[in-house]
């Protein structure tokens, strides 16, 4: 396994108390595989990613437990410089907002080239040639002329492609893309996702794709991890989950989206709101919103039950959920 997150806990110490943003996350990605992490805003997707990358705000953040195994070594036990090397060369991250993650006062060419200067010891001149190559690679038209332009001179879709170029530059074995297309239009999203998938295939990169879009997940993922209130509530191969979810939250999500191929009927709506993370309900965190909740759900935290060899569900009644299609 390329990356394995085991029982990760992250807390934020805030004035209102301790926000348990991540409460026992377990997921894994193999080389060349795409794991989609699905969940609504605030469910802990980005915090988990930041913990993996080692870019968590500490304090107020604090890793309260767990392991992050990358190529069989626990990243949380590494020395800072070793961690930095891995972050620079072996993993890369793509953020939702390309404009704010690119440096506005440096040209795109300088930023792309910098990677080769710092990590590969190239000369500025060679690095610039490399930058043009990369821009070509991600299909920025007239790359040679545009290599000297600043981020704001590119469209949103192009900026995101430049971010992809940057992430891919040193051929990392793991890429984490945090909502890479959420700010983009569908036609541009399609261009960007196609490019990402193509490069991933070529380099056999493991990809963690964070999103709340069930359509994007269905399109590109090999497997899914669904998050709710800082936990993985279900993880399964992509086909299984869409065919028959084994957790009521996943099921609710799938039922609540309008479809392109159907005229509307009333949408199923999960009632209520996600919990405040400083006051997560006892038992199953989903119980106040769950149509199947019973007494045991209000007292006992469901473990991640093994549904089958490749599938887990954190629901006491996963079997009923699975059967009641």
């Amino acid at each position, binding site marked *: 396994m390329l990356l394995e997150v085991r029982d990760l806990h992250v807390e934020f110490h805030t004035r209102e108390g301790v926000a348990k943003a991540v409460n026992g996350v377990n997921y894994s990605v*193999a080389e*060349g*595989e*795409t794991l989609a992490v699905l969940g*609504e*805003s605030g469910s802990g997707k980005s915090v988990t990613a930041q913990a993996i990358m080692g870019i968590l705000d500490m304090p107020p953040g604090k890793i309260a437990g767990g392991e992050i195994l990358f190529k069989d070594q626990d990243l949380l036990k590494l020395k800072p410089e070793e961690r930095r090397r891995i972050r620079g060369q072996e993993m890369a991250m793509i953020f939702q907002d390309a404009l704010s993650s690119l440096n506005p006062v440096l040209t795109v060419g300088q930023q792309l080239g910098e990677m080769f200067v710092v990590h590969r010891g190239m000369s500025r001149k060679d690095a610039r040639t490399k930058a043009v190559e990369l821009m070509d690679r991600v299909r920025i*038209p007239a790359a040679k002329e545009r290599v000297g332009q600043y981020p704001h001179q590119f469209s*949103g879709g*192009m900026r995101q492609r430049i971010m992809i170029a940057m992430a891919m530059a040193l051929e990392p074995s793991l890429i984490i893309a945090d909502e890479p297309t959420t700010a983009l*239009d*569908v*036609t*541009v*999203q*399609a*261009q960007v*996702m*196609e490019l*990402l*998938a*193509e490069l*991933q*295939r*070529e380099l*056999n990169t493991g990809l963690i794709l964070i999103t*709340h*879009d*069930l*359509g*994007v*997940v*269905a*399109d*590109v*993922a*090999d497997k899914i991890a669904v998050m709710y209130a800082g936990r993985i509530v279900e993880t399964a*191969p*992509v*086909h*299984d989950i*869409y065919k028959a979810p084994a957790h009521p939250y996943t099921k*609710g*999500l799938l039922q*609540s*989206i*309008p*479809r*392109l*191929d*159907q*005229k*509307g009927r*009333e*949408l*199923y*709506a*999960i*009632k209520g*709101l996600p919990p405040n993370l400083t006051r997560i309900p006892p038992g199953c965190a989903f119980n106040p919103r769950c149509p199947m909740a019973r007494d045991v759900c209000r007292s006992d935290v469901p473990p991640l039950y093994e549904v089958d060899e*490749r599938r887990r569900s954190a629901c006491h009644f996963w079997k009923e959920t699975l059967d009641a299609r």
Partner: protein
Amino acid sequence: MHADRDESAGTGGAAGSTLLSKARQDAVTPYTEGDPILQVRDLAKHYPLTQGILFKRQIGAVRAVDGVDFDLYAGETLGIVGESGCGKSTVAKMLVHLERPTAGAIRYKGEDIAKLSGRALKAVRRNIQMVFQDPYTSLNPRMTVGDIIGEPYEIHPEVAPKGSRRQKVQDLLDVVGLNPEYINRYPHQFSGGQRQRIGIARGLALNPEIIVADEPVSALDVSVQAQVVNLLDRLQAEFSLSFVFIAHDLSIVRHISDRVGVMYLGRIVEIGSDAEIYDHPTHPYTQALLSAVPVPDPTARDHRERIILHGDVPSPANIPSGCRFRTRCWKARERCELEVPLLAVPAEFRLVDTPARHDSACHFAEEKRVVPPEGELEVPGPAERGSTEREPGEQPGGTVREPGDKPGSAGPGPGQQGSAGGEA
């Protein structure tokens, strides 16, 4: 908002297309039941582009909206979809009189709003209300919910005399599913979905006939989005509202709309019933847009055709001649550069009885189904699919590189949706 004198006087595309106007666009007839409640004709909004600081010279215009035509019937929902910057919000603002059109007409029950003033205008404005996109910024953080929802009564006191306002506001809170006791709270005390309900309650305050909703659920999470969409559905039936529902999410638009207009670079390029547009699109842009929407079904990825559009949308300050979509259209020919295609039923479909018979602004309109028919997606299990496909159990199958496997070449694997827009 722009002062009137800043506006470029109806130059370019919109004026040009007036010449080519259709029969529909004839003189005002008195409003009768069954007529459209709103008729929009050749509507345009051009923002001047100026240069110089002291002496501003106009060097061009941003043609944000450039000749939009549509009808809205009583009790129906017209969806308007299109990519960012295509002019949706600008249309919305003109409908509710927040922006003054550069050219064209908005007729409410047959009367051109631009020609109204004083009480007549006020009455029309009361009847067309707006719900805004962003529940986080569209509500004044220093006003209580009661003041926000009741604010329209300051301008239209005849709707609710002072003494009855509190009760009215509480009724509205109840209608949108919020606790009436929240009347004295402030916006930051509510979640995104609740704030959007507040915006909707405010839109309903004056008992309008028409609600223009600009991306009312785009900022919301999936589960909350469903709650608000259902609310809008219910309110429409309850108050027999007509809706103009603007969004970039094509699935939501289909869900909520009776008819749908597709906008590109300031114009509607195709308009029809939801089935006509989604199941029988004839305009290449609509087809590309629909094919780009990821559907929430992993079995679709292998047998769905993707039209990937190349390049970016041109700037509205520099709209291509002829067909404005031609710079990205895989079917573009010489004629597309020379002649502006009209929004009308294409000649080849005019005499046949088919769902393809609806308005589409393309010289070479052709029906092409890009959304798999309802139900089809659920069916095929992995075993029934083609032999080239990866079994779901295989790990991590699709990413293994074949020796001669060029990037983008057909083959199984995640994200293998790359049927390029080059072929038609």
